[in-house]
């Protein structure tokens, strides 16, 4: 945080700011000292904010035309696609926007994992982020149910049935969730209501996430604490703003490609068949962004344990700041962690692929190994690495790196010398 007191120039501004210090806030946001060595992986915060706002605005418009009723939902979506002015555009932006949102959030999360952004003093930022991620998955799942296609219906059936694994209360809980004895109209209407609510909860958490970020300030690629403001920082505006806009535009080109040229490639063809409780699709597959967790769920033979494993896979991320015992943040100075990091990335990609395949034979075997490795990474490898790993020497500041001997450190120095 900038430590100087902001005083508005105009008298009116001062009068207003004394009563509601919104100008102080604006000043803080523009002057906010940011490490000047942030790379493009740090632009995803801004991209995600854009995604959230896009989803809210397009969703608002879709809700004006959508009808949340089991008999009418499917045809109201077709009405949007055919008769509403630019309805096809709004819907495709919203549907692909969810995928782009998850693409960005996964990059954002894996960036934090690589550079140790979850470590002290940023644990709360991380936990808030995980809460946002969990809410995003809930919102996306419920949103996918709304068009009331075959995958909507059967996806909802499979996921809500998970709760029936809970001992004693399972059956009553699923009945309560459905509002009946199967997924039906009451399920659809409550999912619509919650799907409308959750984005605003996310918005609130995003405000807290950014607030918590602005207390210690950004982490940076070399993961050291820096003096703020100093030679190592630039003000948020215009330096970071323009860089975020540049990255956002690149992101939008990819986004536009999906929306305009392959709007249905990320969805499942079966969702263009109206929901039919009498016909079960051959393969029930969730959206791509849920596949790794789906693979974990299916790789455990017991239903209850599978559900526990799936939720544990998420919860383990929440407590990550205490599982990773290394004091060094950035993977740049952790040669072993860096390797394990890429193993984890590969592991999650493999899990995702296995989640899309039928759970049998070699696929199931690979999924089981990958699930085991996922937990191994967080529960064994990370805590052990913290004490065993020989880390490289860390520079003292961004502009004046320490005189170190190792190849990686000198590479960092060379890179930083160009600054």
């Amino acid at each position, binding site marked *: 945080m900038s430590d100087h007191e902001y005083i508005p120039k105009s008298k009116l501004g001062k009068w207003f700011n004394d009563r509601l210090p919104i100008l102080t806030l604006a000043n803080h946001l523009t002057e906010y000292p940011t490490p*000047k*060595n942030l*790379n*493009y*992986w740090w632009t995803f915060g801004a991209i995600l904010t854009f995604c959230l706002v896009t989803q809210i605005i397009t969703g608002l418009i879709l809700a004006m035309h959508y009808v949340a009723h089991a008999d009418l939902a499917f*045809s109201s979506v*077709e009405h949007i*696609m*055919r008769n509403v002015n630019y309805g*096809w*555009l709004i819907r*495709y932006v919203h549907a692909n926007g969810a*995928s782009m949102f998850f*693409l960005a959030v996964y*990059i954002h999360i894996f960036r934090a994992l690589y550079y140790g952004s979850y470590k002290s003093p940023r644990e709360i930022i991380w936990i808030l982020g995980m809460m946002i991620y969990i809410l995003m998955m809930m919102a996306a799942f419920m949103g996918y149910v709304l068009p009331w296609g075959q995958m909507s219906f059967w996806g909802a059936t499979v996921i809500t049935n998970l709760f029936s694994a809970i001992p004693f209360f399972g059956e009553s809980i699923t009945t309560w969730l459905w509002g009946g004895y199967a997924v039906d109209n009451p399920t659809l209407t409550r999912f619509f209501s919650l799907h409308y609510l959750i984005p605003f909860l996310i918005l609130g958490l995003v405000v807290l996430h950014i607030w918590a970020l602005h207390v210690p300030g950004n982490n940076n690629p070399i993961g050291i604490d820096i003096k703020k403001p100093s030679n190592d920082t*630039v003000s948020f505006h*215009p*330096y970071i703003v*323009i*860089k975020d*806009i*540049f990255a956002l*535009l*690149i992101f*939008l*080109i*990819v986004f*536009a*490609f999906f*929306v*305009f*040229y*392959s*709007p*249905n*490639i*990320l*969805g*499942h*063809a*079966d969702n*263009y*068949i109206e929901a039919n409780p009498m016909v079960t699709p*051959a*393969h029930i597959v969730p959206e*791509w962004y849920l*596949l790794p967790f789906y693979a974990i769920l299916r790789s455990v033979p017991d239903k209850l344990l599978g559900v526990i494993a799936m939720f544990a896979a998420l919860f383990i991320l929440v407590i990550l700041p205490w599982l990773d015992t290394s004091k060094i943040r950035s993977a740049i100075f952790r040669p072993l962690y860096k390797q394990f990091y890429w193993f984890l990335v590969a592991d999650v*990609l493999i899990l*995702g*692929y296995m989640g*899309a*395949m039928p759970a049998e034979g070699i696929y199931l075997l690979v999924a089981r190994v990958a699930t085991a490795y996922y937990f191994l990474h967080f529960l064994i490898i990370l805590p052990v690495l913290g004490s065993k790993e020989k880390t490289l020497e860390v520079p003292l500041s961004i502009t004046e790196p320490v005189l170190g001997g190792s190849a990686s450190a000198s590479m960092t120095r060379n890179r930083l010398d*160009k*600054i």
Partner: protein
Amino acid sequence: MKNFLKFFLIILVFCLKISFISAAEQTEKLLNPGWGFKGFFGKFDRGSLQRGYQVYTEVCAACHSIKYLSYRNLSETGGPEFTEDQVKAIASQFEVTDGPNDDGEMFTRPARPADNFVSPYPNEKAAIAANGGAYPPDMSVLVKARKGGADYIYSLLLGYEDPPSGLSLDDGVYYNKYMAGNKIKMSNPLSEGLIEYGDGTSATPEQMANDVTTFLAWAAEPHLEARHKMGFRAIIYLIILTILVYFSMKKIWSRVESKV
């Protein structure tokens, strides 16, 4: 810039991976006659759409509804683009139930362009009963509702074969090499010279399959041409803006002697 390229490449690989997952699991290789409506400038062939409409009404419509399409759509830009008079004439061939009138009675009247396409059966149960227990699916979004899309529909229409020896089929079940499980309850709908095209095109099964698939692709995605057109403009606009922002960014960052 090098860092940036590396970054962009990784994202690209990730995107490809996602689309790969969704494109996974493929069985019999589908036929692809080369669709003019795919790609950056993809457009429907008007003649093909109009012929496809003819195939739909004269062949498919006996069993398959297309309930989300309205007659007026036939004259809209990006579609078959019949003239409004032609569409009025087409619509008036069909009877729709309307009402109740002032006496509280339901009545039938000739369809108007604003009406939805009239379905061959009053309801799904009637359709199933009339077709030996199989529901002829509604064709409004059929192309989007099948893996393989237009290729699949086209292949299925041409995929009828004699069953391999040893496989006996029940009455009213036919062998199709593209159908899941190879058994289909629709008999081969297309045969040489089945219909007579108004524009003199010779009605081979390939031609009819191509035309009707084009028509169904349009029915599933009536704003496809507008989407492609807008997409091209949007992407060009974004690229130009990105370049401008890139140089602004370079200029701004030159003040701090740090590279972006």
